[in-house]
């Protein structure tokens, strides 16, 4: 309804509290809604329920000890969080002229686990987004297939969610001998499954009705609010750090960067669905290249790093592409074994900061669709 028409029917404002234990808020987030009838005039997010002050902890823990803490930020894509931190510390060494040479096999393993985790994370986003919009079945499909990925992770590092697998200088353990067969089997099974998901949810009329044209965020709005990852690409900006600022061996793979057109909820959702297909492509190429380069027989996955890790003094900002967007680490080192300051630039934090802007004038029911579509993880927002 146009604003002027709505004003004619203006009723008394009502303040509603949504959360902190509301099933659609994906964690402990509270939204304070000021509503006029069914229309949201202002949605103010209240965060901090999961605040553990990771940044303060990091100041008193040696560098390798910080990695498990990074797992606990974005706990559905822990591998990507570890990778970002390790790359930042390695970059500190590198810029100071003390380069740690990461074994080639470890480079490939890092890409493989990061992309597997991206699939697992996007599956969770897909499943829960179905729940948010009223479809229960996709959730069960998503969790069934996510289980396989978590099973593979369990095989290589013993943990299903919080891995502590990627370390400064490489990865902690080699892949199991039949890992690449199992992963190939999974990819062969999984690729056609994406079409099944699309049939289940993406093209579903009710789902389209709930998400098409809802929560539109233009490219310029998205950029000014520092959006990144699938949210930014949903608004039509072709920007992916794996392409723009390649790290590890991402420049050796051929993959596309899917983008949306309208910047609505459906576009953001669809970008994630398409990205799963691209991750499959990257994983296939990574396995092929490992075979071609004879890396499967290689057993060295960790560089020779001296017992205590003391990066050169200085300050560095390094960022990587996680399933939720640019994850940045700002590290200040004073050449001792603990950092003096670690600051995390969380992609969900910046995405959620646009909540007031994106939800202005939407319906209360649509608000659920909007929160689900930006795919937030509160552990990373509150840190």
């Amino acid at each position, binding site marked *: 309804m146009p604003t002027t028409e709505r004003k004619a029917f203006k009723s008394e404002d009502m303040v509603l509290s949504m959360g902190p234990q509301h099933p659609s808020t994906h964690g402990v987030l509270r939204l304070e809604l000021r509503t006029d009838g069914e229309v949201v005039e202002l949605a103010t997010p209240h965060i*901090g329920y999961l605040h553990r002050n990771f940044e*303060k902890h990091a100041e008193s823990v040696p560098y390798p000890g910080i990695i498990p803490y990074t797992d606990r930020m974005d706990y559905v894509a822990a591998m990507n969080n570890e990778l970002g931190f390790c790359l930042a510390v390695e970059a500190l060494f590198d810029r100071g002229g003390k380069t740690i040479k990461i074994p080639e096999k470890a480079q490939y393993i890092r890409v493989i686990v990061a992309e597997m985790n991206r699939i697992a994370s996007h599956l969770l986003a897909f499943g829960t987004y179905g729940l948010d919009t009223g479809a229960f079945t996709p959730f069960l499909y998503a969790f069934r297939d996510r289980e396989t990925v978590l099973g593979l992770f369990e095989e290589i590092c013993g943990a299903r969610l919080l891995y502590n697998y990627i370390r400064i200088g490489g990865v902690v353990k080699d892949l199991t001998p039949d890992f690449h067969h199992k992963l190939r089997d999974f990819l062969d099974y999984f690729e056609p499954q994406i079409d099944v998901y699309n049939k289940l949810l993406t093209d579903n009329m009710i789902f389209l009705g709930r998400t098409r044209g809802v929560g539109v965020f233009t*490219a310029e709005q998205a950029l*000014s609010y*520092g959006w990144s990852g699938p949210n930014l690409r949903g608004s039509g900006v072709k920007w992916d750090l794996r392409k723009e600022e390649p790290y590890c061996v991402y420049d050796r793979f051929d993959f596309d960067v899917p983008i949306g057109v309208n910047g609505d909820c459906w576009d953001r959702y669809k970008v994630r669905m398409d990205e799963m297909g691209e991750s499959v492509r990257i994983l296939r190429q990574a396995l092929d290249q490992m075979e071609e380069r004879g890396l499967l027989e290689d057993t060295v996955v960790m560089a020779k790093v001296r017992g205590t890790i003391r990066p050169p003094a200085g300050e560095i*900002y390094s960022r990587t592409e996680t399933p939720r967007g640019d994850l940045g680490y*700002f590290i200040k080192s004073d050449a001792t074994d603990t950092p003096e300051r670690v600051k995390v630039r969380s992609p969900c934090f910046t995405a959620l900061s646009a909540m007031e802007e994106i939800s202005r004038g939407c319906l209360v029911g649509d608000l659920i669709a909007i929160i689900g579509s930006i795919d937030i993880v509160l552990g990373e927002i509150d840190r």
Partner: protein
Amino acid sequence: MSKRVERTSPAVQVRLDVRHPASTTGVSVDYDEIYEHLRGRFGTEVVLEHVQSDLTDPKKPIVFDPPQILIRPDTIAEVSAFIRDDDGLQMGSLMCVSSLDRGDVLSVVYHTHSMGLRHRAAMRVDVVRSDPVVPTVEQIWPTANWHEREAHDLMGIVFEGHSDLRTLILPEGWEGHPLRKDYKVQEYYRGMRVPY
């Protein structure tokens, strides 16, 4: 970057047209040029220093990546508006706002990035511990809103002119700023013992 976005309001202005070919690493490393450009525009009164890596002693290297351009605190909003709108800089995105405790001074570091020109720069302001006031850059990059609220909570930096400097992450009425080096946990919070 295929899509050209029309500007609607100065606050959300972003340019996406690519005028320079991307460098191989994705990051243009000519930080000196950016520094000289800023210094030429604002002079030495405002652009104080270029804090760079120092690798002369291989045993004790000092790393600054990206190098930090030290700006006089009260001019940060003006400089930010310039680097966003200037044709040669086009810093359309603010990646991160970090706060640091350096002992007698508190710093705020702004990491900015240009998607159009594919370069980045870091600006830094140092403020005295007793009176840590920095003008807000929220009207230039809306994303700074929450970053500044976070820095206000955890480091106690006051962003002058900020539209909404309420507590964001800490519980309401929490005393002290946890990320300061001299932080002591309060004994009681609203009658509850800490740690409980």
